[in-house]
Structures are given as C-alpha cells and as structure tokens.
C-alpha cells in the first residue's frame, strides 16, 4: 500500500524527529533507575513528547487546526488541574483515569482509521486490519476497565468482588462474539455496523472483566490496564505506520506487564487467580469457614494491650526499630506523624528503618510516595528482600495499619488463603507493637496470628491519634 493512502504515515523528516522522541523516552525511563536522576528523566520524556507533538502539528496533511487546538488546550488543562489537585493517597485513581483516557484515545484513533480505510479502499487490508481491530479491542477494554477500576478505588462502586450468575459463560460468549465479528471484518464480509458491534462488545468486556475483581486487587488491574493502553497505542502505530507510536506503546506495554508480574509475585498468586478468582468474594465466603477454623484456634488466646506511654518507652530505649507501614497509615493520613516519631527516636540514638512490602498501598510503590511526601528520606526505605534478615536483630517492629503482610500464617499454614505470600518477618523481632483500629481482619478476611503472639502488643485506635500519643509520650521521656 502506498503511503499516500494512509492517515498517519509520516515523511522522512518527521520520522527522524519521531525517532529522536522515542530515544528521549527510553533515556527518560533509564534515568528513573535512581531517585536523584529520576526527575530529569521525566523531563527528558516530556521534551520528547513536545517535539513529537510539534512535528505532528507541522504535518502538511492537516487541513484544519481548530478542533486540534481546542482539544489540546482543553485536555491539557484538565490533565494539569487533575495532576495538581490529586492527593497522594488518590494516586491510583488518577493513574487509572489517565490510563482510561489513553485507552479511549487509542480506540478513537483505531476507529477513525478503520473508517478511513473502509472508505478509501472499500475494504480492510489484512495487516492494517489486524492492527486496527487489536487497537480498538484493547483500547476499548482499557477505557471502560479503567473507569470501573477508578470507581472501585474511589468508592463510587462497591469495592467488593461482584459476582453474578452465569458470569463466566457471559464473558465467554462476549469474547466469542468479539472473535466472530473480528473474523467477519477481516474477511471483509461485514462493514461499519459489524465494526460498531465489535467496539461495543469490547467496551462491555472491559466493564465485565473488572467488576468481579476485588478492590484490594486493583493495583494489579491498574498495572495490567497500563500495559493494555500501551499495546493499544502500539497497535494504532502499526495501523498508521508510525514509528514513535509503536516504540512508545511497546515500552509501556513492557513496563505494565513487568509491574503486573511483580505484583502477582509479591502476593504469590498467578495472574489468572487475580483476574478470575474473585478473591475478595471467595474469601468472604470461605473466610466464614476457614476463618472460623483459624479463628477457633485463636479464639481462646489472649491479646495484649499496651498503653501509648509503655510503647513509647520501649521504642525510645530500643537500639533498632523497624516501622512497617500499611495502607491503614495512609488512610489515617498518619505519615507525617510517623516521620516526626522517627525523627524523635533518631535524636535519641535509635536506628530507624522502614520496611515496605511490595503490596503496601494501592499501587506498586505507593507507600514510598506517601512517605516521601512526609519527607522520609528514601535511604531509610527498604523492600522485603533487603530488610527481612534485619528483623532478627531488631528490638521493636512497629506495625502501623498493616495486617496480611505480617501474618506468619503465610509461612507455615498451607490452609491459609495467603499461604506462600512473601511476608515481612515482624514476628522475628524481640517485640512487636501493632497500631490498629480494631481486631477486624485485613483484606484477605482472615485472622492474623501475629496479634496473638506473646511478644506482640496492640495499641488500639486511629493510627493518626495513636502516633500523636506516641510522639507526645516520647517527648515527655
């Protein structure tokens, strides 16, 4: 096919500039490998984006700039306001929405390219056809899937895994319909109406695929949808023969896939279990049974309370303290108080470290961002592999709003739903102080035997209030 009949095939000059932009994206991500250079890396990528946009706007085939200019200003304005206003705790929601925007844009581009090819050549050339259909399908799934993910994270829709009768057969039929319509379109046996049905089915698939996934698994979903939007972009790049779309889309596809894999590994669950397991719902059911059994074993055991003053004394006279923050800390907005407590302890000569579980927070690396916001130096943040050996030498492990990630059952109880999940070995330190609102189980819906450990002490109450009491008590010592 000659380049003139394509919408997006760029001239040699523009292609060279696109290549420079792609190189800047790669160098930008490369600089993200260290906190010192990360910010300039992001700037490099932004420069790449700017020059790609400028050279696109200079394209001679553009007939009218009105819609483009208004669209760029409107979208850019919305994006800028959202980026400025979002609270760091709400970062996963924003990333989900940005993902959805990109996916939606990819679906739009593929749809218009389909329309263009249909009218220019009367049919769908096979190679462009496959790219267009993949771009529409993946983009549409990412668009609606991201909106549902946002709704679950934001609390607009139920966070629980929603299951309804015939869920799997319905999804299967939908997938079959998409395949069938795609086949019709590729063999040019059908036109625009079939395409619209294809697109509609893809949009619906995005909704139905994410609805049965529990809120706690949304980080995995958001990573996966990030990778989907990247792949939809790459597919649009194939359809338009545009090199920068292919390279950038593929980079993001690789990034999202890798992060999804790392999250699943951190939870010791295969991706299929996350996507189709309806984790929150099944454990709510089996939690009554299994939790009942586990709960019965733990029911007779006493739980030790501790006062803020006693806990403060223990912390202040310890040599080494490891803080284990969980999402409960973020919800209570207690990260600034935690940093203040850590500063006080360090002034008394206590060594303070933070142990960050890979799934702490609501997206990969979320807890690090929340602590960085509270000015915690990143040198004090350690991930699971780095710190787990230190617990044996640690005097006090301070668990704040974390639960399943410190449950020793994951190590030794094959009956437990979280068995095999890598955990932080808080139970191996000399004392464990647990700040918790109540004895309510965590996301997995199971009892935590750490709370019943003789060396564990519970400081009940809102995390922020409890931290405030600890700070006051340490000051008073």
């Amino acid at each position, binding site marked *: 096919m000659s380049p003139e009949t394509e919408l997006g095939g760029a001239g040699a000059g523009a292609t060279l500039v696109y290549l420079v932009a792609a190189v800047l994206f790669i160098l930008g991500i490369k600089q993200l490998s260290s906190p010192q250079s990360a910010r300039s890396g992001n700037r490099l990528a932004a420069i790449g984006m700017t020059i790609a946009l400028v050279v696109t706007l200079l394209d001679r085939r553009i007939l009218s700039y009105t819609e483009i200019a208004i669209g760029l200003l409107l*979208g850019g304005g919305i994006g800028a306001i959202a980026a400025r206003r979002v609270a760091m705790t709400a970062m996963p929601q924003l990333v989900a929405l940005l993902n959805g925007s990109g996916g939606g844009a990819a679906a739009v581009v593929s749809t*218009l390219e389909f329309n*263009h090819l249909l009218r220019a050549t009367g049919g769908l050339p096979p190679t462009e056809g496959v790219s267009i259909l993949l771009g529409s399908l993946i983009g549409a799934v990412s668009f609606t899937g991201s909106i549902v993910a946002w709704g679950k994270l934001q609390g607009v829709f139920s966070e629980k895994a929603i299951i309804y009768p015939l869920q799997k057969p319905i999804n299967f039929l939908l997938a079959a319909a998409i395949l069938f319509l795609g086949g019709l379109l590729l063999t040019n046996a059908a036109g625009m109406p079939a395409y619209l049905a294809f697109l509609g089915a893809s949009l619906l698939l995005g909704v139905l695929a994410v609805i049965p996934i529990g809120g706690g698994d949304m980080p995995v979903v958001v990573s996966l949808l990030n990778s989907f939007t*990247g792949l939809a972009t790459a597919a649009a790049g194939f359809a338009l023969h545009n090199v920068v779309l292919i390279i950038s889309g593929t980079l993001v596809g690789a990034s999202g896939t890798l992060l999804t894999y790392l999250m699943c590994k951190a939870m010791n669950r295969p991706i299929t279990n996350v996507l189709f397991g309806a984790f929150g719902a099944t454990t709510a059911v089996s939690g009554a049974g299994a939790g009942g059994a586990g709960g019965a074993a733990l029911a007779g055991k006493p739980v030790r309370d501790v006062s803020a003053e006693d806990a403060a004394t223990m912390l202040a006279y310890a040599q080494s303290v490891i803080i284990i923050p969980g999402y409960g800390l973020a919800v209570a907005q207690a990260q600034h108080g935690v940093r203040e407590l850590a500063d006080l302890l360090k002034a008394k000569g206590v060594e303070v470290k933070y142990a960050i579980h890979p799934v702490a927070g609501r997206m990969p690396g979320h807890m690090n961002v929340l602590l*960085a916001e509270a000015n915690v130096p990143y040198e004090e943040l350690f991930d699971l592999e780095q710190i787990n050996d230190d617990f044996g030498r640690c005097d006090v492990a301070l668990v704040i709003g974390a639960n399943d990630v410190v449950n020793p059952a994951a190590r030794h109880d094959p009956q437990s739903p979280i068995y095999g999940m890598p955990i932080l070995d808080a139970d191996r330190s000399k004392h464990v102080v647990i700040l918790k609102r109540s004895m309510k189980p965590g996301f997995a819906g199971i009892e935590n035997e750490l709370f019943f450990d003789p060396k564990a002490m519970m400081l009940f109450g809102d995390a922020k209030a409890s931290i405030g009491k600890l700070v006051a008590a340490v000051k008073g010592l």
Partner: protein
Amino acid sequence: MNALLGDLTIFVLAIFVGYEVISKVPVILHTPLMSGTNAIHGIIVVGAILVTGQADTAVVKWLGFVGVVLGAINVMGGFLVTDRMLRMFGKKKETPRG
C-alpha cells in the same frame, strides 16, 4: 509487506529495550514509573491529531476531537503528576538527618 516487517522489527526490539530499562527501576520508584510510562502512552495524541486534522466529515471531526482531548489529558496529567512525585523524592537533602 516490507513496511510491516520493518514495524514488526521495531516492535520486537522495543520489547527488549523496554524490559531492560524498566527492570532497572527500583521498587521505591514504581509509582512514578507507572505514571511516567502512563504519560508516554499519551503519545497516542499524535495519532489523534493526524486523524482529526484530515477529517472530512463532521462525525469524524468530533470523534477526533474527543480523541485529542483524551490523549492530551493523558499526556499533561501523566507528566505533571510524575514530576510532582519525583520532586518529593529529590528534596531529601533539605531535611535534617538524625
């Protein structure tokens, strides 16, 4: 066909480059990595600009406009929020160390 092979070559090589650079990003920067790569897939706005600029019917124009808006949200939101987060990681030198 040659064009397709060229595109496919770029695609496969980009997978390997992507895997290499991304696997070097430390866990503490995974959220900015996600929002930053998120901004990079906003490059789809380039495609949206091209299809909108060549629109010849009102429907195509409007749909293209929607695509440009969505893509621009993705780009601006992604880069700015990533910068906001990375600024926090960079400012550690000003904080007093115990």
